[in-house]
């Protein structure tokens, strides 16, 4: 039995035994699935494309019938005519928002693809490292 409370030889044997029981497998590079669905085809983004154009005039059906129609139709025309510059600007702004949202969704998809590509490269690199470690020669002690 060693005279030391902790014997270096025994400690190294324990380390070696622990290492021998450790199992490590590098992530296979071809096992990286495209887990995230594309953002630019998402239903929310698609809905924006369908609904971003808001009405810029009074729809005939909205004015009702009879005396209501007789009053509301000219008033509606007047109101939309007065608000026309604002509505055009608003439509332009909404168009820009939809386009920028679309661009962001596409960038998200590009980043997701790039991350997956990097993961594949990292996994390949891990495989190479495992191979290097396996065949590593002892360190050269000569100065």
């Amino acid at each position, binding site marked *: 039995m060693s005279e030391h409370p*902790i014997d*270096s030889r025994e400690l190294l044997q324990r380390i070696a035994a622990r290492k021998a029981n450790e199992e490590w497998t590098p992530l296979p590079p071809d096992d990286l699935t495209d887990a995230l669905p594309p953002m630019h085809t998402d239903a929310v983004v698609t809905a924006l494309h369908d609904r971003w154009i808001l009405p810029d005039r009074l729809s005939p059906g909205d004015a009702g019938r009879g005396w209501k129609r007789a009053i509301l139709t000219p008033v509606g025309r007047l109101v939309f005519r007065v608000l026309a510059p604002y509505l055009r600007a608003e439509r332009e702004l909404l168009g820009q928002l939809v386009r920028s949202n679309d661009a962001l969704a596409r960038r998200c998809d590009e980043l997701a693809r790039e991350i997956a590509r990097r993961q594949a490269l990292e996994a390949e690199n891990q495989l190479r490292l495992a191979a290097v470690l396996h065949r590593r020669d002892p360190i050269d*002690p000569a*100065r």
Partner: protein
Amino acid sequence: MQLHLLPDGSSRVAVLTPAWSRGGECSWAVRQVAAALAGVAEIHVVTTEGAAPVERADGVFVIHELATADRGADLRRDAVLHRMDELPQPARDEVAGRAPLAEALASSLRDPWVGATEVVSTIKPDLVVVADFRQIGAFEAAHEGARRAALVLVPLATVPRIAVLPLFGSLLADVDAALYFTEGERTLFAARIEQGRVVSLPLSRHDSVLREPEPRVREWPGYVLALTDSDRASDDEWLELLSMACAGETLVIASPARLTLRPAAGHAPVRWDEPTRRHDLLRLMAWARATVDLHPGTLFGRESVESLLHSTPIVVPANSSAREHAELGSGGLWFDELSGLLGCVETMRDPATRDALAHQGAAYAQARCTTGPDFVASIARTVHDVARTSPQARTLAEQMAATPSGSLR
């Protein structure tokens, strides 16, 4: 020019070494032995170094430079010897016995010492110290130039240690005693040299470095210190892996040219492109959680011993000189491949394990190291042992025993 530094009648010692001023642990070790003898004897150092044959003074030593060394040839020869040593036993003996190869190797270890016999005979030493067990020419110069002198070998068997004993075994027959700097050396030569002693290392703890951490790393307590050579591209992989192993904690890398701080995640690395002074290195070691010495000195791993002296456990390569300290003193761990290094560093994270190794390592290092006077005493004991069988060394032994530090305690 012949210098006489001590009164006439003083003993004379000839130290034959291929590496007196080269630097590194081997030169340091030879200088320590020579200095221990210098108090009572006139020390003449005969070395193959130098640009031209000359006799000069170096402190208290008289240096006889032969100027015959060929560093490139030495490196090529050592590469051949290492390859031979890696062969299994029967094949090694067979290769070592091949006349042309053996002659070529012997010639490379004999030729630089041409002229040494005459120098040694002029010195008329009472004791000859041969440094480096492979120096065939030095043994021959000692034998022919000072037939009656006692012969002490400082083997300087560096790691990776070579034996190739068919080439060098016969040289050891005339050795009266050996001074080893490691247990590994003693193991290699014990069967062939009757008298041998593992000397204490003349190193000591510097309590001043324990007062406060090195200013550059003060804000990062509990760091792991890695010692490396900056000119080794192969170290980069090891350091990168060490960084991964130290994720979440600070790694400090000290190389001869710079100091690099890689803080815990979220902070930018910092680099100082200036050599780390020795005192700063001791301070860095003293305050580290562990010292990972990627390239310990080839003779005994001085920095590793000093790390243990300052209560910091070590992690060292398995095939290095410093493994002996980690293993015998249980003051650290060793590794032989990258995953082993990871395991060692991870293990050092456990405070209880780390503290136990630090405590054990410090106790081992304090027992293994000694102050100057104690080192001189250990050399004096060896000279005393030699004097029992070699009358020529008796006066030297008596003179050493008469000094306060050389008394045979």
